[in-house]
């Protein structure tokens, strides 16, 4: 059984070079770099893997360490600011370096987050590269920012390409087979196309489809699911990614009304945020709703801008200036509207019965509805005849009566 919190992208992360598709050039380059480094003939002490998200940069580093039987030492941007941690990476290993110890590589993952300021860590990274006795692997999405110019000059640059559509489709087929799931080929194709070379996103989408197929799906939800792929991506973007310039465009490619998107957000905020983050996110929801109210009452459509702002940036900022761990979260379609509709269906009988009771007892439908539980007890066959109840209404009333009597029994017991 698949554990819902283990992302497929984690479960099937390649362990050997042979399992990685379409990155042969990059694999050769990185192998050559490490062996060159170890022989002491390498020009550079670090290699920079750069390219779009979900193309396997981190995977490549891990597979390399495994295939070469090297120990891997991971540093994130906050570690770079931590003197003692840095010293630990550099010193003890140099001292312990012996004939019997394994080789070692240092991985600095997702360097995008570091800045050049005092709090940054970029200068420390440069120092690290100068002093290291071990090959360093750095990964980065957008390496062409100005702040990275010095870093670029210190590293051997290896581009990692987007994974082409056919390879993604191949991965999806293989993995759904390994998971023993039969997924419609068209759905797989659609996922592959939408991923635009991002294998992780494709696998996350696959996972959400596999799940929804396991639960009972109501007719309404099937329609929703067709649009779900876009909304899943948008929700991930807003909830998980660190807030950035394009955050406010997160819903641009989602074919859904903004109000509908708000319902998706409302449903899924608690699966991503807790405590302060939860409160902040709902504060953003509340503010967006106030603007929505003003749009409706004053037809002031410009306010949609603010509604969208709070639903994108407002919610994204709830987690502060950071990204969430890349853990698979299953997003659910909004349940509230469906629930209201179902209760209204159910209450339709209560309403019509209350109306008839109200007429008979010179009162209002509302008041009869309020005291329905008491009235259900006193409505006998004779009264039912006078009320001219339909068979269904009669049944409903009997059920309610039974319910009330039972609950009374429980209370008095």
């Amino acid at each position, binding site marked *: 059984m698949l554990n819902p919190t283990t992302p497929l992208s984690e479960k099937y992360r390649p362990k050997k070079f042979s399992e990685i598709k379409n990155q042969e050039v990059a694999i050769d380059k990185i192998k050559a770099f490490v062996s060159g480094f170890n022989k002491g003939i390498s020009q550079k002490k670090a290699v920079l893997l750069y390219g779009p998200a979900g193309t396997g940069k981190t995977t490549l580093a891990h597979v390399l360490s495994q295939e070469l039987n090297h120990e891997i030492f991971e540093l994130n941007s906050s570690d770079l600011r931590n003197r003692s941690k840095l010293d630990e990476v550099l010193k003890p290993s140099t001292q312990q370096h012996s004939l019997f110890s394994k080789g070692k590589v240092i991985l600095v993952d997702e360097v995008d987050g570091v800045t050049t300021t005092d709090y940054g860590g970029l200068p420390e990274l440069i120092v690290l590269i100068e002093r290291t006795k071990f090959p360093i692997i750095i990964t980065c999405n957008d390496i062409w920012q100005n702040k990275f110019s010095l870093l670029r000059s210190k590293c051997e640059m290896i581009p990692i390409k987007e994974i082409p559509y056919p390879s993604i489709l191949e991965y999806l087929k293989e993995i759904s087979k390994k998971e023993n799931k039969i997924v419609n080929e068209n759905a797989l194709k659609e996922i592959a196309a939408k991923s635009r070379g991002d294998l992780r996103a494709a696998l996350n989408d696959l996972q959400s489809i596999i799940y929804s197929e396991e639960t009972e799906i109501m007719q309404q939800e099937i329609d929703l699911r067709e649009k779900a792929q876009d909304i899943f991506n948008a929700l991930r973007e807003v909830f998980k990614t660190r807030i950035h310039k394009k955050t406010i465009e997160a819903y641009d490619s989602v074919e859904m009304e903004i109000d509908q998107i*708000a319902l998706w957000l*409302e449903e899924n905020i*608690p699966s991503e945020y*807790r*405590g*302060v983050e*939860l*409160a902040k*996110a*709902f*504060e953003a*929801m*509340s503010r967006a*709703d*106030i603007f*929505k*109210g*003003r749009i*409706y009452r004053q037809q002031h459509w410009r306010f949609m801008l603010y509604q969208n702002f709070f639903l994108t940036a407002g919610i994204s900022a709830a987690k502060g200036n950071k990204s969430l761990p890349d853990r698979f979260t299953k997003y659910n379609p909004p349940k*509230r509207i469906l*629930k*209201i509709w179902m*209760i209204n269906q159910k*209450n339709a009988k209560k309403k019509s019965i209350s*109306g008839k009771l*109200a007429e*008979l*007892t*010179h*009162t*209002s*439908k*509302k*008041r009869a*509805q*309020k*005291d329905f*539980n*008491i*009235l259900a*007890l*006193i*409505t*006998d066959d*004779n*009264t039912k*005849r*006078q009320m001219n109840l339909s068979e269904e209404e009669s049944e409903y009333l009997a059920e309610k009566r039974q319910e*009330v*009597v039972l*609950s*009374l029994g429980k*209370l*008095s017991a």
Partner: protein
Amino acid sequence: MVGELSIWTERYRPNKFEEVFGQDEIIKRVKNLTNSLNLPHMMFAGPAGTGKSTLAIIVAKELFKEYWKENYLELNASDARGIDVIRQEVKNFARTKSLGSVPFKIIFLDEADALTREAQQALRRTMENYTGTCRFILSCNYSSKIIDPIQSRCVIFRFRLLEKKEMEKIVKKIAEKEKLNIDEKATQMLYEGSEGDCRRAINLLQATSSISPIITEEIINILLSNAKPKDIRVVLDYALSGDFLKAREKLLDIMLKESTAGTDIIKSIQKEVWNLDIDPELKVKLTEKTGEVEFRLVEGSDEFVQLESLLASFVLAGLGVKN
């Protein structure tokens, strides 16, 4: 034809002025007006279950005798969908002449304060148009919610809540006829539980009797607590313990089950905050937040989202308590 009436509020509804308990002054005056056949438009203002509908029906019965049903139209403003429906019904009813010797018919518009001010303006014109053939009796809980032009066209009668003694007389009379066994304490509980609303008291009495012929304080109490939505406290407790999902699920259930409006929910939250077992300083903060959300309910469009944001604040407060 209507057979024996099984619902006690109807079976024991007074048919004559003399049978009414309480509201003595009003009864006397309305009786005089009715007998003189010089009936003005009237407004019956007062709480629920104090005899407003009853008195309107008695007026009709006294005036029209066996034809009362043909000459009497009862409408409920809180049920009728908009003033247009009311106008149409009034028009159809007023088109034909009254049967018998009385030159007008009676229209009883219950819960008139449920109408918006605009609807009341329209009603005022309708009243003017049909003054020749119809007399209106309006009932409302608060006369202040009725626009002045309508008030000035009516003789206003203010009904008060039934006193304990009056309620006791009514309960005793019904208990005797229905051969019920009821003691002093149970009668007291009926009075307290119904808060002077006679309809509610009689309904409670009948509901209790459908469970046991011996009416006890205990059964009445259980029925009463069963009818009240007390669960707001449960919602707040879930939120304070950090379980946002359960809190919002329960809240939605409460709102949907009894079709409670967000504004009513926030009132009970506001009352409940003071009873919570938390630091007084937190109570002040949460009350402030509650007030803010009550304000936003009016400004916003989705009551539930606003209430969810309040629940999230309670979750946060809950964390504060633990730390």
